C-alpha cells in the first residue's frame, strides 16, 4: 500500500515535468517526443487505476498514432520548405 503511494507520487512528478517541457521547449520535434513520453507514462497511470482496456487503447492510439501524425506533418512541411 505504501509502495503504491510512493510509485504514484514519482509517476505524477514525472508526468507533470514532461508536460511542462512539452509545452515550453522551443524545438518542435522535441516537443512531439516529450508528448509521446508523457503519453506512455499516462498508460502506467491508467494501469495503476485498474483500467487495462483504456491503457491498451492509450498505448496504441495516444502514443503511436498521434506521434506518427505529428512526425509525418512536420516531415512533409519541411519537404515543402526545402523545395521552394
Amino acid at each position, binding site marked *: 500500500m505504501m509502495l503504491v503511494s510512493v510509485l504514484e507520487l514519482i509517476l505524477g512528478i514525472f508526468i507533470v515535468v514532461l508536460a511542462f517541457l512539452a509545452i515550453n521547449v522551443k524545438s518542435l520535434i522535441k*516537443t512531439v517526443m516529450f508528448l509521446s513520453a508523457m503519453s506512455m507514462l499516462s498508460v502506467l497511470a491508467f494501469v495503476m*487505476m*485498474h483500467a*487495462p482496456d483504456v491503457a491498451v*487503447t492509450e498505448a496504441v492510439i*495516444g502514443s503511436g498514432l498521434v506521434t506518427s501524425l505529428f512526425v509525418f506533418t512536420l516531415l512533409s512541411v519541411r519537404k*515543402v520548405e526545402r523545395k521552394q
Partner: protein
Amino acid sequence: MLQYVAIILIMLGLYGLLTQRNVIKIIISLNVLEIGLNIFIISVGYVTDGVAPIFTSTYPTNAVAFVDPLPQALVLTAIVIGVGTTALGLALAKNIYNQYGTFDLDEIKGEE
C-alpha cells in the same frame, strides 16, 4: 493521489493554449489537456482496493468490489475522438503553412 496530477495537467494545458503562438504548440497543449481530463475521469470511478471490471476465474462473481466501468467506456470513446480532433488540427496547420510559409500566428497577421 493521481487526480491532483490530472488537475495540474489540465491547468498546464490551458496555460499553453492561451500563451503559445505556434500552431503545433497549440495542438500539443490541447493533447496535454485531453490526457489530463482522461486521467481525471478515470480517477473519479476508482474504488480503493477494487479489482479491474473483468470477470475472470479468480473473481467469478460480482460480489467483490469492482472499479466503476462506466467512466472507462466514456474515456475509451474520448481517446478516439481526440485523435480525430488532432488530425483535423494538423490538416489545418499544414494548410496554413502551405499558404503563409510559417506556423507562427503573429507572423501571419503582418504578412498577408
